[in-house]
């Protein structure tokens, strides 16, 4: 085998390896997380919390402009991961229903919460996948 042929192959292999080895995890971006979260919301949440997060008074608590939701980010992460039961008070109305735990990856938990916490008049700081991981 000619030497420069050999060098070319080695160079290509090394470049390929370093690309894989040093590629960093894609940086967290709130905007794209919210966009992904919308799809998860449509599939997992919308049948009860409704399209505009309005819920159903007395039955399914609203997420839109919800004092309860926006008061505690950590609680929301727990609730998505583990479900909710028992009495809660949202915007002055008492709810006593049951929400099943939702089977999502850490990234999906962060995405869906970022969507909910930044839609329909809500504005909240980002939920990172690491926070979901820590809450498991």
């Amino acid at each position, binding site marked *: 085998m000619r030497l420069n042929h050999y060098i070319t192959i080695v160079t290509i292999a090394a470049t390929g390896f370093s690309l894989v080895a040093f590629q960093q995890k894609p940086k967290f971006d709130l905007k794209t997380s919210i966009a992904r979260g919308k799809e998860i919301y449509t599939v997992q949440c919308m049948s009860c919390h409704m399209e505009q997060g309005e819920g159903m008074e007395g039955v399914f608590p609203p997420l839109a402009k919800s004092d309860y939701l926006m008061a505690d980010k950590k609680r929301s992460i727990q609730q998505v991961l583990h479900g909710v039961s028992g009495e809660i008070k949202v915007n002055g109305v008492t709810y006593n229903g049951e929400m*099943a735990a939702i089977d999502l990856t850490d990234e999906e938990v962060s995405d869906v919460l970022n969507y909910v916490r930044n839609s329909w008049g809500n504005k909240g700081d980002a939920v990172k996948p690491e926070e979901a991981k820590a809450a498991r």
Partner: protein
Amino acid sequence: MASLTLKINNKNHTVDVDPKMPLLWAIRDVVGLTGTKYGCGIAQCGACTVHLGGTPVRSCSIPVSAAANKDIVTIEGLSSDNSHPVQQAWIAEQVPQCGYCQSGQIMAATALLKKTPNPTDKDIDMAMQGHICRCGTYPRIRKAIKAASQLMNQKASIK
């Protein structure tokens, strides 16, 4: 117990029930319309889907009191003779296998087509995702929704 009026398929029913009773119980056991099925009981499977004020909802998880005096449509309300385009498409494509989830599937599909008359595969997947079918009839469901969409468009163009 409370006396409530349920407006199901354009007919008023007065029922005397615990206001906390799930709407599904009232529809099946009190009013006697058994086309709507009980699947999981926790709004996870979609079998009990009916329309409440035009929106598909899980009737197992809504107290009957929340549905009083609102328009409720069940599978029986689509047509009296299976002539609704979604029902026609379902028959033509032979969608059901065991059939248990299908009234919920059909109600969800009907609601989807009302909102999105020409749904893409993605629209269909998004709208139908919450409806579980143990027989795995999903490809036929998708096909039938597309067929129903065509039937509805044809009907609309004739008018």
